[in-house]
């Protein structure tokens, strides 16, 4: 039962002897660059669609992310390696890893612009149009993932700007504030709109998360600007800054490529939002930090995040799935995030879990028993949807009242 969570054991980062997996750890460096190829798939699919006059090609990037990465995860399996302390010191500040991110951000925009050009300059069926818009949506979703990694580096202006450019693609300009100052602070508590509750479907969650995240970001930024003696309605507001990038880009795309851009960009932005809701939904489902005697919540620990340690999806998602280490140490760069022993584990990579989350009954049947295990049968220790409470207590609560 390697995947089973043992609540009484301390979660620890797995240590490898330096010789273990050293080839893989070295080649991993280049695999990150290889993952940039995925960002070029829209260009390839646009080329094939036009030269073969076959619009179905426009679905390629969208299908690859879900089916392709899931299949590759099955083939290549888990990533057993963790960088040694010496290796962490060596690579944590290497420019190479940052440059990959800086290349990725303009590639996202390039791919979306090329897809926009192709769907407006050739005749396609509505179905092919949808494929192109969803493939562009995948770029917006990737932008959120990149913006996440970059946005955590709060002391590096270049990375902060790149985060804004990546997030502007989906119009999620409030993400960095909401995520760093809101989600990381409140994670795995009922107060966090970006942590899902046991018994809450993804559809119910998104209705709480999307407006809740926006309100929290707006309040946090307004409070910061108030301390600085500046108006929240000024260019100092980082939410407004990114919104202006989005607005400029969208207006230009509509001006150049016509009204078809309106549904196209609506799908792109909606897809970026949905991908983030999906990630937030699966990353902390049901997990709850306990309150200490002082009334404060315990600090976020590795057992408060769901992890997946599959090689391929982790390369593509910049180790987002090593989520316990990320929440324990949010400023750690992606290339040095470690897998932990004895933390809550998902049975598949995030892309496949996003699909399962679309079907609440399947999701509940897989995840609810895992949550019950995690809480050792004490449903009081679970982040619970109030409406699902009676039902989940009846089915899973194993502690005498």
């Amino acid at each position, binding site marked *: 039962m390697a995947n089973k969570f043992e609540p009484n054991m301390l979660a620890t980062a797995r240590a490898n002897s330096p010789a273990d997996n050293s080839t893989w750890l070295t080649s991993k460096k280049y695999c990150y660059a290889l993952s940039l190829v995925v960002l070029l798939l829209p260009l390839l699919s646009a080329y094939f669609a036009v030269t073969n006059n076959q619009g179905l090609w426009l679905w390629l990037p969208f299908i690859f992310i879900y089916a392709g990465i899931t299949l590759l995860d099955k083939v290549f399996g888990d990533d057993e390696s963790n960088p040694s302390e010496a290796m962490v010191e060596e690579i944590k500040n290497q420019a190479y890893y940052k440059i990959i991110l800086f290349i990725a951000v303009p590639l996202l925009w390039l791919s979306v612009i090329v897809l926009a050009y192709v769907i407006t300059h050739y005749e396609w069926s509505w179905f092919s149009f949808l494929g192109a818009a969803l493939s562009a949506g995948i770029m917006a979703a990737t932008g959120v993932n990149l913006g996440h990694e970059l946005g955590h580096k*709060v*002391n590096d202006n270049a990375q902060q700007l790149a985060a804004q450019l990546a997030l502007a693609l989906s119009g999620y300009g409030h993400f960095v504030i909401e995520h*760093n*100052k809101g989600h*990381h*602070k409140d994670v795995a508590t009922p107060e966090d709109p970006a942590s899902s509750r046991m018994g809450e479907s993804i559809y119910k969650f998104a209705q709480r998360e999307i407006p809740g995240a926006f309100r929290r970001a707006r309040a946090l930024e307004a*409070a*910061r*600007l*108030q*301390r*600085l003696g500046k108006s929240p309605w000024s260019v100092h507001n980082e939410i407004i800054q990114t919104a202006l990038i989005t607005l400029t880009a969208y207006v230009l795309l509509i001006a150049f490529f016509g009204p078809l851009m309106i549904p196209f960009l609506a799908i792109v932005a909606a897809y970026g939002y949905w991908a983030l809701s999906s990630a937030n939904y699966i990353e902390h489902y049901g997990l709850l930090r306990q309150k200490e005697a002082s009334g*404060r919540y315990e*600090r*976020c620990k590795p057992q408060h995040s769901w992890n997946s340690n599959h090689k391929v999806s982790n390369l593509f998602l910049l180790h987002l799935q090593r989520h316990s280490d990320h*929440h*324990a*140490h*949010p*400023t750690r760069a992606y290339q040095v995030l470690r897998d932990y022993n004895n933390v809550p584990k998902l049975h598949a990579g995030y892309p496949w879990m996003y699909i399962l989350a679309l079907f609440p009954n399947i999701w509940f049947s897989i995840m609810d028993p895992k949550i019950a295990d995690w809480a050792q049968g004490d449903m009081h220790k679970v982040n619970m949807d109030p409406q699902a409470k009676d039902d989940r207590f009846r089915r899973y609560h194993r502690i005498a009242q």
Partner: protein
Amino acid sequence: MAKFECPDCAYIYDENKGAAHEGYPAGTLWAKIPEDFPCPDCFVTEKPDFIAIADDK
């Protein structure tokens, strides 16, 4: 002027420097920082978690 270190990410709040981006200008005393002040780098810890450190660090 005193310094306080985040036990998670090693960010140091230096009263001489404050946390300007977050709206606490240079010279803001630790005593004037609110209890729910999160570490401005990692946002995992809050003021009560910070550890006072020697001035020369």
